[in-house]
């Protein structure tokens, strides 16, 4: 999934997020149909906004692990669909969790 995101999606992504990023998850009406775009993402919604989760604590590892990749890296917001405010809080919580050894900095498989 990381390879897809970097190579063929890079030129395709430059138009999508350019129009989509200011409007957030609800603005993805550009690639509405098959325009030769393989990686048309359906309208992803922010999990925290819909489920009304207010507090993202560094202590609930299960919640945080859903936003961390296999190697331990934080997944970018365009892949998870999280909104900006929650992504910032999530990042802060993940970094706190890493500091207290609840999440790894870099995981080897």
């Amino acid at each position, binding site marked *: 999934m990381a390879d897809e995101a970097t190579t063929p999606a890079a030129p395709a992504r430059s138009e999508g997020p350019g129009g989509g990023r200011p409007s957030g998850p609800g603005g993805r009406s550009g690639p509405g149909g098959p325009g030769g775009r393989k990686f048309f993402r359906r309208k992803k919604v922010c999990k925290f906004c819909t489920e009304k989760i207010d*507090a993202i604590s560094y202590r609930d590892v299960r919640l945080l692990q859903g936003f961390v990749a296999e190697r331990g890296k934080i997944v970018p917001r365009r892949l998870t669909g999280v909104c900006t405010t929650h992504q910032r809080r999530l990042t802060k919580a993940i970094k*706190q969790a890493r500091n*207290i050894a609840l999440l*790894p900095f870099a995981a080897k498989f």
Partner: protein
Amino acid sequence: MQRLYEVMFIVRPDVADEEVDKLIASLEQTVTGGGGTVRSTEKLGKRKLAYLVRKFNDGNYILLTIDADGSLIAELERRLRVSEPVIKFITVRMDEEEKRLAKIRAIRATKKKVSAIPAEAPPAEPAAAPAAPAATETATQASA
């Protein structure tokens, strides 16, 4: 100016439980002696660490929720740093977060009330009003 803090620290897995309790007791003493209050102490138990810390693979997690001021926290952290069984600690300031959460909850509570009152009252009142007079009218008609 008492602020709310969460202090989480990890104790080496090879220390006995009594030692852990003694350590927690001494830390609580430090807090109360310095003018703070311990809200709660939680022992989260032995967990596997995500990476090697001082050559240990697992550790005993303990969470303290404290009301204290900054200088007391500095003292507490100094003690944690110096104490041998503690291998890692983190202090997180929670009062701003609490304020924000309380605000959200308050907004949610008022939102519920506002949406409940007009939704219930107008349908309830007009529904009750025609229903009640209608019922009484039919009752009186039936009786008469």
